[in-house]
Structure formats: structure tokens, C-alpha cells
């Protein structure tokens, strides 16, 4: 362990605004921000005018993909219980240890046994051993009675429930959203209302139980309107979105591009605009990568047979920086979406650069240009719907708990 580390000459993104200067790290924690006297024994890093920001916290990843997380500046990942099924204490402990020391993985406990939406899993025992919340998995819980009991039970334990906002009956066998693209391609599609329908039900159940609920990805104007109203009422609800749903619409599927097959699916342009508006007005709490690497055996197939999902970890930051470049939000809000809010919602350390806080931080050259290329991705698979897109913004240095990891 380096006893002290002085990062100087940058612009520090703190919850209270962007501060010129640097960050002094001591014993894994932040000792000073802005201007400070550099201790004689400190190791020094010159940020050369670039940004110093909190390490990203990615909520709802489907795989522990350490190299991709490190490259993308993700220092903590909240893991979905789907792959392998985190429904026992041993699996929680195993998942929590899997990324250390570079990346800390915070598992979500399976809400129901086998994620089948029936009987409750051992949520309390898993929480005691490190689960930071519970999750319904890749689909919603169809049975309203089960969802009602789950929210009440998890809420009483102080756990936030993470759900997939899509009515399973309406979504059925659909592989994309209803609309011109689906009709032209002849692909089975579901109305975008499948999302708002699920959100409406679950908001009523939140009202009945007063239990905290997080919609992993909300992607339609209708559903966001419901969440906006619920927040106004003071309900403990939150929601996330991926850059794909902010920057792509359903016509990205044209040509049967399976890399653009996502769950929830890409929406039409008016919904995409509604999502951007919800980022600007604060309705959306966080941006996540939805990291779900799928190799050619899952993607190089006819569209209906391909698995949904994208490898998003290493493109999360660069794509999200586009929101600042477009003038939609400032750096402060961006890093609250990418780190601050996730930490608050799931009770995790880090997430913000504050004196005394965890020294999980990144040095980011927000202007550095590069091109997203599927076959040059660090992730275990290169299934990105942004293949070929030029972007700006790279992590030049990452520090986890005071230790340089990149």
C-alpha cells in the first residue's frame, strides 16, 4: 500500500461542483481535495488538466468481467443474480470475492428460488453475507401476490428490490419493440406499453408496502412519466438506463443486427427523446452498462435465436460523456448518475469524491478520441451495438482504495 498519493493539476468533480486542483489520498481514503500541501513521502501523479472523478459504480451487470470493468473505470459492480443463480449464502460470498482487489463486486440476491417468480429465496441470510439488494432477474415477477410479499419482506430488511420493467404477457415472444422497423423486418414485436404496464403495477405495490424499488432499465416516455409522478409523491423508487437506450433507437436493428438485440429492446425515437429529457430533469437516477457479454455462439444466429444483451462496460463512460458534450447535463450530474446515486441507492462505499471517503477514483481525459470496435474490445465478448462509432473520453488512470489498478 502506498502511504500517500498526491494527484495534482486536474479538475476534480465533486458533489459540490468541479474544483481545480487535485486529490490527496492517504491510507485508502481521500485526505484532501483541491489545493493542499504535498507531503514529502507522497507519490505524485500529474493529471495534466484532465478530470479527476469518482470510480464508476455499475448497477446490474450480468457477468464479472474484470478487465472490461477496469478499462471502463468501473471500480464497483452490482451483479445480477442470473448467471449461475445467486441464491445461496456461499454464492453471495463467492461473487463478492470474485473481482477483488481491483474491482469490488456487490451481488444482488435472487429474489425468488431459481428466479422463477414463485417462492422467496433466502434473502435475509444472503443480505447478512453481503448481498446489497435483491433482484427479480432478467424478467419481472408475473404474480402480483409474490411481488407484493417480496417488496414487503425485502423492504423490512432494508433492501432495495431491483426489477425488470416489462409485462411478460404483453412482451411474450417479442424480440423488439412494435414499430416500422419490426414490421419491415418481419420480427415479432411487443408494444412499448409493456414497460409502463409493469411499472404502473409495481408502483402501486410500492405505495402499498413503502418498500424501496429500483427499475433496472426504464426506456419509454410513458413509464418515465409514471416514475416522475411517483417521485413527486415521495415514493422510494429509482430507475436506471443504459447509453444504448439514450443514443440508439429501434432502427439500429435494421439489417438484423443481433448486437442491437437488447432487453428491454431499443425503442422508437420519441421514447429515446423522452429518456434524454428524464436524464436532464432528474427522473432517471443512474446510468448503467447492462454489461452482458455474449459470444458469437449466442449472437451469430438468426435474430430471433440470438441472445439479447450487450457488452457495455468499457463504453459506458465515453458514451455517457456525450451527454455533457451535448450540453444536456454537467459533470457533477453525470458522475452522480454513474457513481453517486448507485452508491446511495445500494448503500455502497465510494461513489463521490469527498474528504474522508473511499479513494476510488479515476483520471479521465474527457477529450481523448477513439473508436468503438467490436473485435478490439477487452470484454470477454465484443457484442456492442455501437461498433464503429467514434467517441471521446478515456480513463488514463484508475485507483481503487488508494491503489492504482490501471
Amino acid at each position, binding site marked *: 500500500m502506498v502511504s500517500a498519493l498526491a494527484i495534482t493539476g486536474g479538475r476534480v468533480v465533486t458533489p459540490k461542483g468541479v474544483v481545480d486542483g487535485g486529490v490527496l489520498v492517504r491510507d485508502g481514503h481521500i485526505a484532501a481535495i483541491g489545493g493542499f500541501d504535498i507531503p514529502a513521502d507522497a507519490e505524485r501523479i500529474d493529471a495534466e488538466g484532465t478530470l479527476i472523478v469518482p470510480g464508476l459504480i455499475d448497477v446490474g451487470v450480468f457477468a464479472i468481467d474484470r478487465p472490461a470493468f477496469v478499462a471502463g473505470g468501473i471500480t464497483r459492480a452490482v451483479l445480477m443474480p442470473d448467471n449461475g443463480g445467486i441464491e445461496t449464502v456461499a454464492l453471495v460470498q463467492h461473487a463478492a470475492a470474485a473481482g477483488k482487489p481491483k474491482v469490488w463486486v456487490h451481488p444482488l440476491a435472487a429474489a425468488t428460488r431459481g428466479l422463477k417468480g414463485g417462492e422467496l429465496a433466502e434473502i435475509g441470510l444472503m443480505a447478512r453475507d453481503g448481498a446489497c439488494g435483491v433482484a427479480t432477474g432478467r424478467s419481472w415477477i408475473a404474480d402480483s401476490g409474490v411481488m407484493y410479499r417480496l417488496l414487503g419482506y425485502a423492504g423490512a430488511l432494508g433492501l432495495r428490490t431491483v426489477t425488470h420493467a416489462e409485462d411478460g404477457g404483453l412482451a411474450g415472444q417479442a424480440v423488439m419493440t412494435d414499430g*416500422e422497423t419490426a414490421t419491415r*423486418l418481419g420480427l415479432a414485436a411487443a408494444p412499448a406499453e409493456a414497460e409502463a404496464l409493469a411499472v404502473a403495477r409495481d408502483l402501486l405495490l410500492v405505495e402499498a408496502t413503502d418498500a424501496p424499488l429500483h427499475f433496472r432499465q426504464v426506456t419509454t416516455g410513458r413509464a418515465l412519466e409514471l416514475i416522475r409522478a411517483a417521485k413527486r409523491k415521495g415514493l422510494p423508487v429509482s430507475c436506471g438506463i443504459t447509453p444504448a437506450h439514450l443514443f440508439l433507437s429501434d432502427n439500429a436493428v435494421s439489417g438484423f443486427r443481433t448486437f442491437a438485440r437488447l432487453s428491454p429492446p431499443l425503442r422508437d425515437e420519441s421514447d429515446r427523446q423522452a429518456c434524454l429529457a428524464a436524464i436532464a430533469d432528474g427522473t432517471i437516477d443512474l446510468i448503467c452498462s447492462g454489461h452482458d457479454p455474449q459470444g458469437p455462439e449466442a449472437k451469430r444466429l438468426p435474430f430471433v435465436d440470438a441472445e439479447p444483451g450487450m457488452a457495455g462496460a468499457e463504453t459506458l463512460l465515453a458514451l455517457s460523456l456525450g451527454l455533457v458534450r451535448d450540453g444536456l447535463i454537467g459533470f457533477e450530474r453525470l458522475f452522480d448518475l454513474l457513481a453517486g446515486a448507485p452508491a446511495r441507492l445500494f448503500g455502497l462505499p465510494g461513489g463521490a469524491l469527498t474528504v474522508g471517503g473511499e479513494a476510488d477514483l479515476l483520471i479521465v481525459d474527457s477529450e481523448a478520441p477513439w473508436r468503438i470496435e467490436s473485435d478490439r474490445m477487452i470484454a470477454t465478448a465484443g457484442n456492442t451495438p455501437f461498433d464503429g462509432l467514434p467517441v471521446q473520453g478515456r480513463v488514463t488512470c484508475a485507483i481503487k482504495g488508494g491503489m492504482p489498478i490501471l
Partner: protein
Amino acid sequence: MSSPPTRSVDGRLGSPFPHRHLTGIAGLQPHEIGFLLDEAEQWVQLNRGTAKHDDRLAGLTLINAFFENSTRTLLSFEIAGKRLGADVVNMAVAQSSVKKGETLIDTAITLNAMRADMIVIRHESSGAVQLIADKVDCPVLNAGDGRHEHPTQALLDALTIRRRKGRIEGLIVAICGDVLHSRVARSNILALTALGAEVRVVGPPTLLPPAIERMGVSRFTDFDAGLDGVDVVMMLRLQRERMAGGFVPSPREYHALYGLTYERLAMAAPDALVMHPGPMNRGVEIASNVADDLERSAITEQVEMGVAVRMACLDVLTRARRGVAGW
């Protein structure tokens, strides 16, 4: 996949049909569609003679790879290939390694390694034919992929209409029935609107795709209103499994509301042409006496035009390969 949507246009931009494959009507210019129809006319004449043979495809191998059952389309392509002198091989899914879990891409690579000169593909998944076309060196013809496209069906329908009516531009065509699940409907909408027809889709709301108006058609759920004054009534097949309550309550109710009978046909123009891609469910989407009316129905003629159109497509797509001057 990661690659951008593939245009099948290759370097022969000066040619009247600058496409390597025929994966769909989408992407074809009106004059290119017209060119294929013109080319088909000579084969209609040949097929009506006694010596139905031409050997321009001699030495070339045509593989019909049908991953989904078909009788008439397979037979039509087989006859088309043989009448042009090609060696025709049919690969039916029942005998193929696809049943053993081989991926579609591996199957494509295998067919390619066997040095096929043309591959005709039918597959149950939308987009599957494009997936194969991207991986092989020879021309690929789409014989139907999922609900996506069935381009030779649209070409044969256009040829049938053009021969019967003398034109396509300005006609009103009603495509009726299960449009949602129909690749025939999609290819026909693209071809007929490109050629200047006014196209309507008519059917129960559960069987009409959302945003279908964006393809340049008007939408009717009332059968009589949809048929009012049309020049061509194109009926679609309703799959048996969709009649049992999932999309429509019963075959009986479907026939009562959306079945083509003489009474219904009276709504259309007096000389309206009746078409159906086959195989028909008699007494469900179409009454037998209408289907068999030689004056009104062009159903058998559609089958005849199918062979001619497919001969034209096989000929045109292999011209570069055969070294035909200007291609």
C-alpha cells in the same frame, strides 16, 4: 451482427440488375423489378412450348436449401433450374445436419465449400437468408425467410397482374388476411408500391402489423370497406394454428368476417382479379367457387408465372459468373 446492413450491390453498377443476391424486394429500384419481369416473359413463352429447355446454366450447380417445409416453391425452383440446364440438388431439412445442432453459419460455409453456383434458401427465421448470403461466394435467392420477405412470390404476383391487367401503376390492390405473419404480404407491399400501385391491407386488427401505414399502404379492418373498388384482391393463407383462438376465434368466424365469397367480391371492381399464393384453405379465407372461377381467379396462373420468374432470377444472377458480356 456487428457489420452494417449489407447491400448486395456490387461493382457492376452499369448493369440493369447490379445485385449479387436476391434477398428481398427492399433495396431494389422500380426499374430493376421491371427488368426481372421483362426477362421472365421469354420464359413464359418457352414453358408453354413443347421443348421446354435451354442450357444456359449447364454445368452450374443449384442447391435448394429448404430449412422449412415447402412443396410448391421447392418444386418451382427445381423446375426452373432444370429447364435452364443446371444441376439441381435439393437439401431438405429432415436429412440435414441442422437437426443435429449445426449452426446456420456452419451450414452456409459447408454449402459454399461444395462450390454451389446458386443457393436458394427458405428458413423459418426472419433475416436468416441474409445471414447466409453474407457468408457465401455465390448468388443467394431468398425463397422465404420467416415473416420478412419472399421476393420471387412478389415478382410472380406482379408479373401475373401485369399480364392480366396490362399495367400495375394506378391499380388498387387489396392484400387481405394474415398480414402480420406474412412474408408474401411484405414483399408484395414493397414491389407493388414501388411499381406505382395503391396498396391496401385488410384484415382483423390482431393480424395487421403495427405501423404498417409507414410502408405506404392504407389499413382496413372492415373487409367490405377494404375491398371497395379494388382492381386486385390478393388473399393470404391463414395458418391453422392461428385460427384456434390466439389471433382469431375460429375458422368459421374468420370465414364469416374475412372470407372471400362472391358476395364480398361484388364490392370490388367488376373485373377485379382474385389471387392467392397457395396453398389455400378452401372455405376459410376463400370460398371454393371463387378460387375456381377461371374468369376471376389468377391462382393457377400465379403458379405458372412462378416458374418463369424464378428462371429469370437464376439467369440474371448468374450472368457475371458465366461471363455474359456487360455483366
